[in-house]
């Protein structure tokens, strides 16, 4: 008998705004938050940059992003010294801005993690996960599994990445960027659009300890393509294995899943790979959304941010459309949503994939509205 694990107290900030409910409202009625901003060498570049007024003052951007979510979350859940809390942090590049400023030593991710641990007042060393663009989803898996297995009773999961010249130039050098807002799964897709975000949730085995319930954990898995460092498997091997493992652990069938929230970067190879993996998983008829057309690809934050938003929408029985998508040409059979849709059931499948061939999949039941 698996221990029930509850997810709640969600906080998030992206270019689209602050808070899961605000994200869903904006995605129902507004347009993309992807805009031209000054990029490297002041050249205009489309990206999902968080408005300054949404961020608190702070020494640097990654701390400001994290504090925007962490401060209210800690006020809400208030970890007590006699409780068994675990802190799980996810980031792809952490404080890489420090290296850009000439202080390479300060860019070490464990330094950032220790700062956050002290801020949370949690004794146990943090589990700090860097699994490329699958980091946020992997962190949720690690936290929920830790509670199921009795390593902790409660956990805070915090995922963040900030925009930087370091990353913008790197993706540009890979020819992985769409010159405009990205078009996940669309025939006109030309690449992804980068963004920045932070998302945080509390997870607990104690339902009464969980404010603003978002969902109940069912299962999760990570798998590797073992194929290529910077390109996904052409046959979706790793993602297929992650999805199958999660479904097997949760003992669910494809027809039990209400909606799939895909990684959906807008790059040719990623979206093609996902479509193949989803079809091979028997998910060809399940509604699929991808959110990066709204606020960009937020790297290590993406998995948790998109999970929080998808659950918030699913609590009201809705799957949100894929901004930037109209006509597909991906090789696998997938049902990508062009409009918001009422769905049956409350089970979300969220997937993420990243460089290095890492893939992560989680199954979560959305709570009732």
């Amino acid at each position: 008998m698996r221990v029930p694990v509850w997810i709640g107290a969600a906080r998030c900030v992206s270019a689209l705004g602050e808070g899961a409910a605000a994200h869903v409202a904006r995605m129902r009625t507004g347009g993309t938050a992807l805009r031209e901003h000054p990029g490297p060498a002041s050249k205009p570049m489309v990206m999902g940059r968080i408005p300054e007024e949404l961020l608190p003052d702070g020494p640097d951007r990654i701390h400001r992003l994290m504090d925007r979510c962490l401060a209210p979350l800690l006020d809400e859940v208030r970890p007590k010294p006699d409780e068994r809390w675990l802190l799980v942090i996810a980031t792809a590049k952490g404080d890489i801005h420090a290296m850009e400023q000439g202080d390479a030593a300060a860019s070490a991710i464990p330094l950032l993690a220790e700062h956050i641990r002290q801020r949370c007042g949690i004794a146990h060393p943090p589990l700090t996960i860097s699994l490329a663009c699958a980091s946020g989803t992997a962190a949720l898996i690690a936290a929920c599994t830790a509670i199921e297995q009795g390593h902790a009773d409660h956990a805070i999961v915090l995922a963040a990445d900030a925009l930087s010249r370091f990353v913008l130039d790197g993706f540009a050098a890979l020819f992985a960027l769409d010159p405009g807002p990205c078009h996940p799964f669309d025939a006109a897709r030309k690449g992804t659009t980068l963004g920045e975000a932070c998302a945080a949730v509390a997870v607990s085995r104690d339902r009464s300890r969980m404010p603003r319930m978002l969902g109940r954990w069912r299962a999760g898995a990570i798998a590797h393509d073992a194929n290529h460092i910077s390109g996904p498997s052409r046959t979706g091997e790793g993602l297929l294995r992650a999805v199958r493992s999660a479904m097997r652990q949760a003992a669910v069938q494809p027809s039990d899943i209400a909606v799939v929230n895909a990684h959906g970067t807008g790059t040719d190879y990623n979206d093609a790979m996902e479509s193949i993996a989803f079809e091979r998983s028997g998910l060809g008829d399940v509604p699929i959304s991808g959110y990066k057309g709204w606020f960009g690809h937020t790297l290590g934050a993406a998995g948790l941010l998109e999970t929080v938003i998808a659950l918030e929408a699913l609590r009201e029985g809705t799957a949100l459309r894929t901004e930037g998508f109209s006509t597909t040409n991906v090789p696998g059979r997938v049902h990508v949503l062009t409009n918001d849709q009422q769905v049956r059931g409350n089970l979300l499948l969220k997937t993420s994939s990243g460089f290095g061939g890492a893939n992560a999949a989680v199954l979560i039941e959305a709570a009732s509205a």
Partner: protein
Amino acid sequence: MILASTRYRDGAFHSGGLRFAVEGDGADMKLARAWDKLEQDYPRFHRADRLSRVLMLGAAPFFAPGGALEKADREHIGMLLCTSTGSMESDHRYHELLRTSGTASPALFVPTLPSIALGELSIRHGLHGSGLCLMMTAPSATAIAPAIGMLRQQGMRWAVCGWTDTFAGRAEAILAAMDMEHAADDLVNELQHLFDEH
């Protein structure tokens, strides 16, 4: 339980009955010479970033003929990589080129993610299993106990698990090939013992 282990530090290699030391000018030459000593036919090793190379070097004996994981089902081998500096050496190389020339190199950018090392190891040995790259100040099995539990929950029967670090001209690894079908506490204690010997 730990089936086999490897220690490597700046040219000194020890894994089971295999013990040697190589000399060379800098970490990269020592890694290349240690790799040659293992008689590994895998040219891709020399193109990989330093964190990936030290991980592949340390894990090589586990998958060699007669190695602890040679016959293990690749679908059920997990990976846990703990590191303090992670990709900082690659970050620095990429950033310096960008700063001095204004040019971003795609080849240097990709390994600025520490989990690329897991990807390289998975490609080298065809590992499709679960895995995490964990950033921490020093090796601690107690700290990663939840991650060991996660691998077990996802059906990983074996794992390559341990510590690698590379920065400022040094490279080290403490790696274990683990049989995961034992009590979780025993796995953590054995791994901590391995780290403590360091």
